[in-house]
């Protein structure tokens, strides 16, 4: 009787495939113009039986996960390649990725991709609006260079001649102020701000102007 009970407890342990993730959270940084940020999640099969990834799920169409399709034998390392669309995106994104395996003790795993997407410069704010009846006094967009980008110049342009732009350099290569003055009581415009950055292709950031 005792032996049977012992077997009952030991059998599930023996059948355990056991999957150990190197990291369940991977951080990466990219710029919007790169188009994609990529990362790799790896795991080791520390159990006695092969492990197979049966499915992966992401929370949005912006993330794609491609897993090893071969069975990962005991002691072997498997991987999941993840890519995240960075075009038009900015800020910190946290994308959970669900991974199904044939391991009965860990059939569902969740790993997290953290992506920081930064342009060469940051605008604050990206929208200036004047409410009905509000005097058309100038408003300011602060432009600051992001760490790690060597900004040598900032080019600005307005889609409307009814918007006057004045760029002031506060600290060369670091801080700028763009003064925006509407010249008409009904203006709808976009401002293109293109930093010239050493070693990078020009990438334009858009700010929006509305005068109701």
């Amino acid at each position, binding site marked *: 009787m005792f032996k049977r009970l012992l077997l009952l407890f030991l059998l599930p342990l023996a059948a355990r495939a056991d999957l150990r993730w190197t990291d369940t959270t991977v951080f990466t940084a990219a710029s919007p113009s790169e188009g994609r940020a990529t990362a790799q999640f790896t795991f080791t099969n520390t159990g006695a039986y092969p492990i197979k990834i049966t499915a992966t799920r992401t929370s*949005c*169409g912006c993330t794609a996960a491609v897993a090893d399709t071969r069975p990962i034998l005991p002691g072997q390392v498997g991987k999941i390649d993840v890519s995240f669309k960075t075009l*038009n995106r900015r*800020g910190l994104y946290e*994308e959970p990725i669900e991974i199904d395996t044939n391991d009965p003790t860990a059939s569902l795993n969740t790993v997290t991709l953290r992506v920081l997407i930064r342009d060469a410069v940051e605008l604050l*704010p990206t*929208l200036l609006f004047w*409410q009905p009846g509000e005097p058309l006094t100038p408003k300011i967009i602060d432009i600051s260079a992001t760490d790690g980008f060597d900004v040598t110049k900032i080019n600005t342009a307005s889609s409307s001649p009814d918007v006057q732009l004045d760029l002031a350099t506060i600290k060369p290569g670091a801080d700028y102020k763009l003064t925006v003055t509407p010249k008409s009581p009904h203006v709808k415009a*976009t401002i293109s701000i293109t930093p010239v950055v050493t070693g990078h292709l020009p990438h334009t950031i858009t700010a929006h102007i509305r005068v109701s």
Partner: protein
Amino acid sequence: MSRALRQALSLLLLACLPALATALWHPRRPAWQSDEVTLSAATAWGSAVLWVDARPDADFARAHIPGAVPLNEDHWDDQLNALLDQWTAKRKIVVYCSSLSCQASHDVARRLRDEAAMPNVFVLQGGWEAWRKQHAP
């Protein structure tokens, strides 16, 4: 009894110190106020609401909340431009994506608040699924 109470209060106070430090300085501290709004609360705002659909264009084309404007990050600048044509500072923006588990509505809401400095930006709890369930024929 009073000694036990004193000890319990001391322990509680000690536990509060790291909690307070986390709330003040942790880079991923939870927000004091949630930016989410329930469907019934958002619906009660009536025409003051500007519904913003953060789902992919194909999902928006299939069906969306009446009057909603699309704004997903794949077409951010173009769609934001169109959204601004319908927006005034007095309107409340309610962003939704597919369901409770999707993150796109939170990302879009964050950018409208942090980058564009727009006031009154909320996320619809339960997203499109919640709306569809309530309005299913």
